[in-house]
């Protein structure tokens, strides 16, 4: 429709239609008559009768009071009619819609629609908004254009993602495979075009004749599927029976559901429970898994019962009953029942299975007995003392407090020495006892005092073990102390050892002679070598020294930042003050524990292998969030040495393959759009039988040969 503003514009040139229209409307009748007269004069030559008849008819119709036909032609009533435009008469006067409307209403020729529109316009009072300025319109246009283009471009999204994810892309896309094609492949793309072919296929389809030679023809299959009359009858009877049963059951259930009696339901529930228990027992035998599940359910219900206050006689009802219970027998019974229910539900379910479980459960049951027993009084002096506050063993602690650091340091050494000594002792098989065996007694006494006496045999055994451990600990400590006391003794011991060794060797020589009939020639030489080897140093102590040195080197050093002479007198013989030393000596953070801390006879270098670092990955590559992920991803080697040929090829497959010399054309939209649509549902025109195999082949081939069809289409478009 034309906006009023624009209307005004067009009319502002001075076309005064209103007056003209008014004139027109007034003279309408006359004009028509004139016209008719003219036309009549023109047609005089034609048959008079006809004309007369027509005229008569017209006259009659005009007399009928109905409005005459609308004018097909509109004439302008103006004084001067220009060749190009309607000239303006009475410029400056505005045209109102009402002016237009009045005439339109009267005119029969105007369409109802325009009339309505005009009326609406008249009714609307508000002024129209200004048109948007250029920037804003452009912005809106841009927005719309953006939406459009995103919609257009986003249809590429899928294929892009697909290609990014693809293990391998072969360019140019849509290559036709070389070599002979499979028959199915060829057939799938083929259409019955000639009438003869179409006819043949129609025939084949109508007979459901197989094209691909399946095991059974569809007709045969159908005949196999078909049943005999008797079978059908039996089946029908069965169906009828089941239907009837179903309806009975439904009716019964409905009826039962409508019963409102609580007692009835109670009884029903009880019955069900009994039944269930019976079934459960059977289930345990037949279907243990199912039984286990049921058991779990029961366990759950038990838990719920234990959690809730239901059946605990704590509710409103129960309280009221409790009042009544004194006098009312039934109330008492009800309460009893409630409690019984609670007891039943909270009772632990015993699974009748292996003997061990039973025994365990018995044990469990027996455990709570001690709760009732009087507590064993540990300390006769202080009967309130239930738990020991400290478990310190006085003797050991005093030793450790003397030299805690040295004990730690020399622990390993002691272990080592102990090990060797033990072995030597075994070899010697001497009668000599360990020196601290005398100390064993007081130690054990102390332990005995501390430990609560328990009647069980096993526990006693455990206790003994503990004692032994303690004793061994004591032994090591004792040895440590002895070691520190005298180095001379050690040397003596070593000397002894040497003697022992020699003796051993000599012994073994005899053994050797027993074994070998021929005497070994250079044994004397060997013995001398051995003696020479053992004559010098003690291997073990050297090693321990070495280890300790290494450990010391690895330990964090104290940084001394004291500046002598600052803030006080400095010089020869003057030490910085104690305060200063304390303040400016900084201990560095301790290093992580050594790898060889539990291996007394091993020194593992803590130095980092820096040479390999340059070859290692030092920063995590993109999608990985931690090192474990990345390391797991690269844990499988891809080389030929570790893998089979096929796997190597697959692992080292290039991401992109381009055909040599082939032009890689940009992707065409039709290609992938077709791909998605056809692979989703649409199949080719011809169905070659119902054989699955054929279908499979077709799908595969259709997926492969999308490209060919796409290219054909492209060609068509070009032409």
């Amino acid at each position, binding site marked *: 429709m034309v906006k009023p503003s624009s209307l005004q514009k067009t009319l502002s040139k001075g076309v005064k239609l209103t007056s003209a229209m008014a004139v027109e409307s007034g003279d309408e009748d006359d004009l028509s008559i004139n016209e008719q007269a003219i036309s009549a004069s023109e047609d005089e030559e034609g048959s008079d009768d006809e004309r007369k008849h027509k005229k008569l008819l017209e006259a009659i119709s005009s007399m009928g009071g109905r409005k005459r036909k609308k004018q097909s032609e509109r004439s302008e009533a103006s004084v001067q009619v220009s060749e190009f435009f309607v000239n303006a008469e009475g410029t400056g006067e505005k045209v109102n819609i009402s002016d237009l409307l009045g005439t339109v209403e009267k005119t029969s020729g105007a369409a109802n629609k325009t009339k309505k529109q005009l009326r609406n316009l008249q009714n609307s009072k508000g002024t129209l908004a200004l048109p948007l300025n250029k920037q804003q319109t452009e912005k809106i246009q841009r927005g719309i254009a953006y939406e459009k283009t995103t919609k257009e471009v986003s249809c590429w999204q899928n294929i892009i993602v697909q290609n990014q994810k693809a293990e391998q892309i072969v360019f140019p896309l849509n290559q036709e495979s070389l070599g002979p094609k499979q028959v199915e492949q060829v057939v799938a793309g083929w259409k019955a075009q000639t009438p003869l072919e179409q006819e043949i296929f129609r025939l084949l389809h109508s007979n459901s004749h197989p094209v691909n030679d399946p*095991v059974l023809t569809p007709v045969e299959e159908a005949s196999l599927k078909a049943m005999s009359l008797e079978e059908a009858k039996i089946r029908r009877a069965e169906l009828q029976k089941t239907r009837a049963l179903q309806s009975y059951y439904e009716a019964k259930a409905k009826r039962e559901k409508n019963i409102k009696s609580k007692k009835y339901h109670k009884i029903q529930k009880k019955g069900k429970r009994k039944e269930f228990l019976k079934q459960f027992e059977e289930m345990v035998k037949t279907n243990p898994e199912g039984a286990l599940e049921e058991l779990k359910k029961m366990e759950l219900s038990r838990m719920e019962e234990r959690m809730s206050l239901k059946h605990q006689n704590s509710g409103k009802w129960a309280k009221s009953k409790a009042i009544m219970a004194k006098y009312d027998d039934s109330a008492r019974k009800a309460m009893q029942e409630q409690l019984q229910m609670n007891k039943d539900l909270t009772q632990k379910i015993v699974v009748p299975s292996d003997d061990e479980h039973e025994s365990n459960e018995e044990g469990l049951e027996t455990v709570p007995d001690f709760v009732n027993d009087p507590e064993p009084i540990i300390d006769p002096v*202080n009967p309130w003392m239930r738990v020991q506050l400290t478990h310190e063993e006085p003797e050991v602690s005093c030793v450790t407090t003397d030299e805690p650091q040295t004990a730690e340091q020399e622990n390993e050494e002691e272990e080592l020495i102990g090990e060797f000594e033990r072995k030597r002792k075994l070899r010697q098989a001497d009668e000599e006892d360990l020196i601290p065996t005398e100390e064993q007694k007081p130690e054990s006494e102390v332990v005995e005092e501390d430990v609560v006496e328990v009647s069980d045999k096993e526990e006693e055994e455990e206790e003994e073990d503990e004692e032994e451990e303690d004793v061994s600990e004591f032994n090591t400590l004792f040895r440590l102390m002895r070691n520190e006391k005298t180095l001379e003794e050690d040397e003596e011991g070593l000397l002894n050892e040497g003697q022992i*060794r020699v003796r051993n060797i000599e012994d073994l020589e005899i053994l050797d002679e027993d074994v070998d009939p021929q005497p070994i020639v250079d044994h004397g030489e060997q013995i001398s070598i051995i003696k020479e080897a053992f004559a010098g140093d003690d291997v073990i102590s050297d090693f321990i020294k*070495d280890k300790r040195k290494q450990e010391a080197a690895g330990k964090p050093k104290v940084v001394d930042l004291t500046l002598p002479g600052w803030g006080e007198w400095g010089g020869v013989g003057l030490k910085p003050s104690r305060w200063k030393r304390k303040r400016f000596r900084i201990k560095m953070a301790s290093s992580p524990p050594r790898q060889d801390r539990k291996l007394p006879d*091993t020194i593992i270098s803590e130095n980092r*292998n820096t040479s390999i670092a340059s070859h290692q990955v030092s920063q995590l590559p993109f*999608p990985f969030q931690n090192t474990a*992920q990345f390391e797991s991803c690269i844990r*499988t080697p891809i080389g030929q*040495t570790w893998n089979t040929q096929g796997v190597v090829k697959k692992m080292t497959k290039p991401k992109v393959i381009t055909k040599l010399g082939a032009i890689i054309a940009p992707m065409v939209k039709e290609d992938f759009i077709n791909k998605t649509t056809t692979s989703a549902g649409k199949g080719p025109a011809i169905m070659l039988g119902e054989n699955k195999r054929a279908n499979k082949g077709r799908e595969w081939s259709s997926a492969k040969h999308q490209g060919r069809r796409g290219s054909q289409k492209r060609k068509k478009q070009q032409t």
Partner: protein
Amino acid sequence: MDSLICYLPNKVNIYEFDWLFLTQPPKRYWEETENTDQRRPEEEQGTAVQNQNKSTVKERSLKRKNGESLEKKDPFSGEAPIPHKQLQKFQRGEKYKVPAGARQRLKEAIISSEAMSELAQKQAARYDLLLPEDAGFLEGDEDEDTNTISQDDIADAADITSGSKVYVIAFSLYLLKKLQIQKNVFVCNRHLLVGGKKGHVACIDWQSKDLMCEMNVMETVNDVKWLHTEAMFAVAQKRWLYIYDSKGLELHCVKKFNDVLRMQFLPYHFLLATASATGFLQYLDVSVGKEIAAICTKMGRLDVMSQNPHNAVIHLGHPNGTISLWSPNQKEPLVKILCHRGAVRSLTVDKTGTYMVTSGLDRKLKVYDIRAFKPLHSCFLPAGASCLSLSQRGLLSAATGDIVQVYQNVLGSSPVSKPYMAHRLQGQIWGLAYCPFEDVLGIGHGEGFTSMIVPGAGEPNFDALDTNPFRSSKQRQEWEVKALLEKVQPELIGLDPGQLSKVDQASFEQRHKEHVEALGFDPLAKDKFKPKTKKKGRSSAGAIEKRKRKVAHEDQRDKIRQTVQERTERDKEQKEKSNEKKNLGNKSTLDRFRK
């Protein structure tokens, strides 16, 4: 002797195959299907779809003939199942599960890599079928120890080719005065290299018994070693290290390597590691002829040496009973283990790098697990073992005086009880070496060289891409080029050969430190504070000093502040603790009832 079953499956000899089958045919995959049967239905479901096409052909023919057999299925449909044990053999690390809430890209990366590694594992397990040969063994009669069976009996019972492997080369007859002791034996595939103490060196083709070269270097020979191929060998002579070709032509005299006592060749790194009498461990890259590293071990004379084939770490035995492990990248030993109370006489490491066997002057034989550096077991050999050698299949041969004893199942937790085989020779034994892929042990002793058949010593299945004992000269050349291309750099030698596949966890500081070490200066170091010169007497010496003092020791100040703060906190805590203790001590027994 007729009941003796001696069985030397030598995948090398095709003629022996029929003989092999008499006793026990090699196992095929369908024989091991008992334990995989349970898995079969699941697999069938998966593979049924794939193999529908295959199976329909068979089924159709069946159905056509008799309509009843419609339900019959192919009993071997789908891929052959892989036994779990076999799969486990090729497992590399644990499977990584995709963490919950992982991003899409990460998920895809993990899933694809897991799928690939699984495929690799499966394929490797499947191809394991192609290694059907079994190692042989010696089985005596009832109440007959296998160590009483003599070599002659074995040679008689075995086939001709195997029997012919027992021979004695009496060098003493040939060079009576010059050669007294066969000091070293080294075998490279089918080539034998023998060096005499008095300078006699000989190369022999092991099988055809062709003498490739024989010479006298007129000097004490300490050790001989083949290099990567049989075309070259290194001889450690009295003063320098020499390299000869297979015809005895002197190629190099490496004067940087003096007084070499022992040598080891690391085949994948092309490194010749030498241990000298002066206590130096040196590495020579034979591919470029460069000295890679020279480490002063400070351990005295180094005459016991071995290599770990798993990680190319050199093991040295020392007179103080320790064994030290070395790599060319560190100036100090990676690990030092105290193994014996006397000097270490000999040591050897097994193929997988899991076990180390040592013998010392204390006449002990110890087996170590060198992954954990823990002794597994030790036994006492009456005469002590002067030479040790482990075969590819883990048979240990020990030379005790003039007897060679071969032990079975040494590499395990159970201690050794009695030898599997024993052989007496004339004179002291000086060298032992197993022939790879053969059941033969070469022994160098005072009277010459003797070979000994040890059934079950050699690996029956060889990897022709790696070491092919039957390669032609052309193949050898090609292999050489390939091996050189795939040469492993010496920087990668370390205790853990899988270190390369791990992310370098060192912090930035550590990395920076190394960078500084490499550069020789710190690229990120701050310049020293230089106070600006100011006018109007404000740049006097005192003022400058004052300004300098403002910024002096700034980093240290921070640290000090931090440590002081920490210390005060610690003290506070301790105080609180002691207070608590005091309170506890003051508490009366009845305090427990107070709330």
